[in-house]
């Protein structure tokens, strides 16, 4: 009995001793795990953005880009987020949609801006998407749904355009896991509060959109793919309770109205 106990303890000790000793070595650095994923993310982001640029029209009007950049800059500065990591693009499309791509690309459709009653609603959606980027949800979703091997094969040019197209569709028109969506919502509330923006407007936006006429539901990609908008609005309100201080708008009313005017008057090119 004594013999087997001693030998058992030695065996277990040997196992854990070896594990803990090997743990001291920087395997992640040796196998370049992070470098591989960083490079893959960078290449994927650029590939997807190139794909969008080919089919959609980007609005580069300075009134539009300055207004959106002001909102994004203010959010990032208030939350110590590295602004250099983000690439914000406004795409001219009627759909109410915004989504994040790998490597910090943040795509906002003009339909979303035009359907926002005020800038705080837009800021809420932007914060939600920045949260997805900051929490690394984009790569997690891609790795889970497509697999790291396919992602790497896309970046090495073996993926084919159809795979890129399908992957892009997954990113632009399907939601993340419920838990990831909630995490991004709650993080967005923190970002909004830190940026002195009223999170209630973000919740109102979700309420408003969820009660929109079902005939135009197909245009509301951002909400129809994000389940349980009302429930989300509720926990956003709950999360912002007690955090409400004094809020101020980032853009002047003139700049906000000018932004909408520019989007309405956009000259579409064939």
């Amino acid at each position, binding site marked *: *009995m004594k*013999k*087997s106990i001693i*030998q*058992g303890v*030695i*065996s277990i000790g040997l*196992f854990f001793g*070896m*594990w*803990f*000793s*090997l*743990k*001291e*070595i*920087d*395997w*992640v650095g040796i*196998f370049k*795990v992070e470098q591989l994923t960083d490079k893959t993310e960078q290449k994927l982001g650029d590939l997807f953005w190139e794909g969008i640029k080919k089919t959609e029209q980007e609005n580069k009007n300075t009134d539009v880009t300055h207004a959106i950049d002001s909102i994004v800059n203010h959010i990032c500065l208030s939350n110590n987020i590295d602004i250099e990591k983000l690439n914000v693009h406004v795409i001219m499309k009627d759909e109410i949609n915004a989504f994040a791509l790998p490597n910090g690309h943040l795509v906002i459709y003009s339909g979303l801006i035009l359907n926002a009653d005020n800038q705080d609603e837009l800021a809420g959606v932007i914060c939600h998407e920045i949260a997805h980027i900051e929490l690394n949800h984009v790569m*997690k979703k891609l*790795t*889970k749904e497509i697999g790291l091997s396919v992602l790497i094969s896309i970046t090495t040019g073996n993926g084919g355009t159809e795979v890129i197209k399908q992957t892009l569709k997954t990113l632009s028109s399907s939601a993340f896991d419920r838990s990831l969506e909630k995490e991004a919502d709650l993080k967005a509330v923190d970002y909004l509060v830190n940026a002195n923006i009223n999170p209630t407007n973000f919740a109102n936006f979700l309420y408003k959109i969820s009660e929109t006429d079902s005939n135009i539901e197909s245009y509301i990609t951002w909400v129809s793919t994000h389940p349980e908008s009302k429930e989300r609005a509720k926990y956003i309100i709950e999360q912002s309770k007690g955090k409400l201080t004094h809020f101020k708008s980032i853009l002047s009313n003139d700049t906000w109205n000018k932004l909408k005017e520019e989007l309405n008057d956009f000259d579409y090119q064939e």
Partner: protein
Amino acid sequence: MIHSNPFNYQLSEEETESASNSYLMSLIAIIAGLPLPILNLLATFIFYLGNRNSTYFVRWHCTQALLSQLSMLFINSFGFWWTISIIFTEENITNSYIAYMLTAILFNIVEFIATMYIAIQIRKGIHIELWFFGPLTNLICKSKS
């Protein structure tokens, strides 16, 4: 770590074959069901059930084979689920994970070689007690006479 000890009675050809097969069983199952660590344990357990009324020598070795598989089950299951959580959840590849997998692989290789060696020796009629599992088997498996 391998310790041999002669049995005190003449072993028949059938006995050494059955006892040796109990180790081979786990080896075959390792190859067949490598991603699922439970398969080799199941194979060894089924073989153990089939031979529990056999002679003392066969029973003894079936028990030792089962016990050695059981310990590997814990190590491999932990590694298996850790890998699954990295693939499907927010878990990341860390130094700790790689170190664990390397340790687990090394223990598996040692166990694989030891099992292969023991299967050959038992077939020749040489009784072998593994480190830790041998004394443990002596405690569990008693002669009926």
